Each structure stands twice: as structure tokens, then as C-alpha cells.
């Protein structure tokens, strides 16, 4: 409830949440919005926009609008699947490192750092090249196992700050196991950081997955925005004037990404009051001029 209130009170968060919600609805019931089968190659090729085909047809004679609507599902599956899984993995590794300390921390931390600096996208390309035609499951797995390191590092430093707190000492005295303390005592205190990490990870997963599909490393028969871009590029849609085929999926990715990014930015503001817009503070009862003078000094 408090979360909903916080989102409603922040313009960026509201915009982000509405965007995300709209895409979730599209992914759940695509049939309500598009009547064509997205994969059926039944129409003439490269039709322009019309009332029958709102966004025209593709180079293979599929309805572009239907493809964009049905494509939402795979993108969201990847965003939520890989986003959640990599955040969870990061939480386990980061918090375990901080909590266990000593040797375990040194090893886990070094491992995290190594994974962190190996350039992610080239690595994804290399893995996808060996796999051939990665479907949803493969993409989620690969993105999860390569994308946890940054979050793990953030969560580790957060958990280090918690380590000497009394409630953890109490749990230890009670004789709880380390796994219990990590999962039940430490992780819940970091929920806002976890949400922010999930939003960042989901955004990057969307961008990476679409990029891989765009360069032809996804499954070319899947219905998704990245695959649509791949076919548009194959069809030389820009050069031949069928640019709607390239604009639509790219804009869809950008809108979904903006949803995640806006929510994330807003979460930063909610979690760190110093970053909030100044307008808000003017509501205080102080005379405006005095406030502003003080602010310019602070």
C-alpha cells in the first residue's frame, strides 16, 4: 500500500508504472487488441498502413500490428524471468559474501569482480553464436548467469553495513542457520534496493535480448520485437521505404525500456530523499525567499 502511494505521488513513477501496466495487459490478452495471427503469412507483402492493417504487413506478409502486440509476451517473459532470476542470484551471492566474511567473502567478491569486468554484450554474442537460435529459455538462462555481478556488488556493500546490527546478533544468538539469517533477516531489509536492482536488470535484459535477436542470434521464428527488427533489416526495410517495419518494434522496445527506467529513477528519488526534486520542499511553511536562499547555500 505504501508502495502504491509512493508511486502515485511521483510523476516519473506514475508514468513508468502506467507504461509497464499497459504492456503487461497486452502480453496477457493480445487477442483482445489484434485479431490477426502474428505468424500467419497470409497477406500480400509489404502493404502500407491502412484500416485493415493498422501498421501494414511485413516482408513475409504478416500483419505488423499483430506481431507487435503478440511480441510483447516474449519480451516481458525475458524481462521478468531474467530480471528476477539475476537479481535473486545476485542477492544470494552478494549477501552471502558479506555475511560469511573472511575467506568466503574474498573468493566470492573476486569472482563477482571478474564477471563484472568481462564485457557483457560480446560475451553474450559469443555464447549465443555457439548455441544457435536461442529461444526464450536459453536467453533467460544466459542473461541470468552473465548479468548478476553488478547487483551482487551493490548488495554486498549494503549487507556489510548491516552486519554488526543488533537484530542479526540476536538471530545468531538464537542459533539460526546462516541460510535462514540471510533469507529471512537480511534480504527483507533490502527490499527497496532489490526492487531498484530488478528494474535495472529487467531494462538491460530487454535491450540485450532484443539486440541479440536483431543481429540474428535469437530464434528467427519467434514472435518478438527483436526478431521483427531482424526481419526488417533482412528485408532492407529502411532502404526500400517500408520503414514502419523497423520503427514499430524499436519504438515498442524504447517505450517498455522507458517504463523500467522511469520507475527506477523514481525509486532512486524515493529511496534517497536528497535526490528528490526541490519543488516539493517549497510546501514548507517558510517564506519562499528565505527558503530559496537557504537552499542555494545547502
Amino acid at each position, binding site marked *: 500500500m505504501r508502495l502504491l502511494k509512493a508511486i502515485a505521488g511521483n510523476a*516519473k513513477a506514475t508514468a513508468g508504472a502506467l507504461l509497464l501496466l499497459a504492456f503487461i495487459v497486452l502480453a496477457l490478452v493480445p487477442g483482445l487488441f489484434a485479431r490477426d495471427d502474428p505468424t500467419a503469412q497470409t497477406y500480400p507483402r509489404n502493404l502500407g498502413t491502412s484500416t485493415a492493417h493498422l501498421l501494414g504487413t511485413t516482408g513475409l506478409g504478416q500483419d505488423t500490428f499483430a506481431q507487435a502486440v503478440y511480441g510483447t509476451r516474449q519480451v516481458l517473459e525475458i524481462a521478468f524471468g531474467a530480471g528476477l532470476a539475476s537479481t535473486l542470484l545476485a542477492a544470494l551471492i552478494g549477501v552471502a559474501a558479506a555475511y560469511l566474511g573472511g575467506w568466503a567473502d574474498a573468493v566470492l567478491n*573476486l569472482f563477482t*569482480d*571478474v564477471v*563484472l*569486468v*568481462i*564485457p*557483457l*554484450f*560480446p*560475451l553474450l*554474442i*559469443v*555464447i*549465443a*553464436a*555457439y*548455441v*544457435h537460435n536461442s529461444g526464450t529459455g536459453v536467453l533467460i538462462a544466459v542473461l541470468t548467469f552473465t548479468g548478476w555481478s553488478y547487483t551482487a556488488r551493490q548488495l554486498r556493500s549494503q549487507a556489510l553495513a548491516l552486519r554488526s546490527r543488533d537484530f542479526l546478533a540476536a538471530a545468531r544468538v538464537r542459533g539460526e542457520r546462516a541460510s535462514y539469517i540471510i533469507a529471512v533477516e537480511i534480504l527483507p531489509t533490502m527490499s527497496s534496493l532489490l526492487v531498484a536492482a530488478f528494474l535495472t536488470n529487467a*531494462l538491460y535484459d530487454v*535491450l*540485450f535480448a*532484443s*539486440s541479440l535477436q*536483431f*543481429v*540474428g*542470434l535469437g530464434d528467427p521464428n519467434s514472435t518478438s520485437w527483436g526478431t521483427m*527488427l531482424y526481419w526488417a*533489416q533482412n528485408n532492407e526495410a*529502411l*532502404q526500400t521505404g517500408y*520503414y514502419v517495419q*523497423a*520503427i514499430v518494434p*524499436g519504438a515498442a*522496445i*524504447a517505450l*517498455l*525500456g*522507458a517504463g*523500467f*527506467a*522511469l520507475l527506477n*529513477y523514481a525509486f*532512486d528519488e524515493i529511496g*534517497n530523499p*536528497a*535526490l528528490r*526534486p*526541490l*519543488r516539493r520542499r517549497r510546501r514548507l511553511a517558510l517564506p519562499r525567499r528565505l527558503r530559496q536562499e537557504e*537552499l542555494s*547555500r*545547502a
Partner: protein
Amino acid sequence: MRFLLRRAGFFVLTLWAAVTLNFLLPRMMPGNPALAMMGKFHGRLTGQALQNLETIFGVNTHESLLGQYWHYLGDMATGNFGTSLFFFPSPVGQVVRAAIPWTLGLFGVVTILAFFLGTGVGVISAWRRGGVVDSVAPPLLVITSAIPYFWVGMMFILIFGLKLQWLPWSGGMDITETPAWTGDFIGNVVQHAILPALALLITTIGTWTLTMRNNMVTTLAEDYVRMARAKGLSSSRIMLDYAARNAVLPNLTGFAMSLGFVVGGAILIEYVFNYPGVGYMLLQAVENEDYPLMQALFLLITVAVLVAILLADIATAIFDPRTRTTR
């Protein structure tokens, strides 16, 4: 000194991890994809070149995995990456060397520009909280950071290349040009670089601005900034020497870190613009199942990022006295 030695050790460790990944990945995949590749090029390769590739990918060898690994490490250490299959019969090293200047030129300039411009906007935005720059730049940049790099490139091609026909949008230079240090040739290369550079700049600038702004907001609340004001120092001095100098430190480390991401973006920009650099070459290698070339390029990109991180570490050691005194 100890700090730098530790970082150098980390450099070697990560490099080793990248080499090991290269070694293990094809062997871990079901039905070793390298085997299929070798089958395709059967008959074209003979003698030493064939044997060399067989040891790199562990095909047809009766060596133990450990023995293969030892061989592989030796090959990598001596720069023996094998023969490129797509650009047959050129050795991989030669193909890679031809691609490096393109990427270095384009990407080097853009990265430095993006860092300075982005950080500068961040400083101003935090300094004038709630001002024009601060209310427009951050939200706008949040949104541009969510746009796929390559799609921005495609839109640039559509608008400036195809519709307005202002600039060339494919390749690094005209095919009719011959490389030479003439004004004509250099002008041609610069013309070809403008659109990809702009696309890259627009999509990478946001990160710098946002982190710099948020660091700067925190730094501006510090007591030493208040002290500087009390001393009556000029605003520009407080802004740059007191606040920005301290706020830029995390950005320096971040600069190196996110190079990995920017390299990824550069790959797609090069791909879209057919720009003959390292990233374009990597995707060519992938498309044509030229695994030796792909492995070498992956290693090269990793080394580039590692060198950047090492440089940033050295810069941090110079700017931040705290790292120097920790023993």
C-alpha cells in the same frame, strides 16, 4: 603502490578467465559446434593450419582435456589465434589488426566526448538544482538510455542518410577512395564517421550525466563545500575544485566499468552502419561461423576494457589520496 600491484594482479586473473571461457565454451556446448564448423571447411584447410585449429577447438585430438588446455594457453600467450576461415587464408591476427584503427578512431573520440559532455551537463544540472538544465536533461536522458543503440542508428540512417541525404551511412569510406594521408581521403573518412559517432554519443551521454548529477548533489551537501562558501570563494572555484573534483571519482571508476557496455553498443552501431571496425568484424565472424576470429576478437575487446580499467585505477590513485595511503 600496493593498490596498483593488486589491480595488476586482477588484470591478469580476469584475462585468464576470459581465455578459459574461450576454451571451455565450445567444448561445453552439446555436439561441439566447432566440429560442425570444421566439417564445413573440410578440404580447404590442410597441414599446419588444420592441425592448429584442431588443437584450438579440441577436434580430432586424443589429448586429455588438461593437455588441450595447456596447449591452448600456450597458443594464446604466443598470439597464435589460428587461421580465419571467412577471410581465408589470412591469419586471424592480420584480420583483427585491420579492424582496430576504425573502432579506435570512432569509438575513442566518442567515448571521450561523451564523458566530458555528459559529466559537464551533470555538474551544471546539480549546481543549478531545479533550473532549466536540471528539469530537462535528467528525465530526457533517462528515456534515451532505454532506447536500443542500434535503433537510434537506424533512425539516423533513415532521416539523415536516406531522406535528407546529408551524409553517407554505410561503410568507413567510399570504395573509390584509396587510403592515403590526403585531405580528400581524411574528409571522406570523417564524413562516414559522423552519423555513427552521433548515434553513439546520444545513447551513451546519459549515464555520465545522471551519475555525475547524483554524486554532485550528495557532495554539495558536504561541510567542506559549506566551508568554501563561508570563505567567500568564487562560485566557479567551489563548483569545480571543491564539489566536482570529489564527485567525479565514482564516475572515473564507472567510466571504466561501463566501457564494457559501451563497447557492446559500439558493436551494434558498427553493424548497422556497416562500419568496418572490431564489432562489425565480430558479428561477421559469428554469422560465418568463423570461430577462431570470433575468439580472438572477444579476447581483444576484453583486453581493451581491462586496460581502460587499469588506467582508471591509476587515475583514481592520482586524484584520490585515500587509495594511496591504504596499506
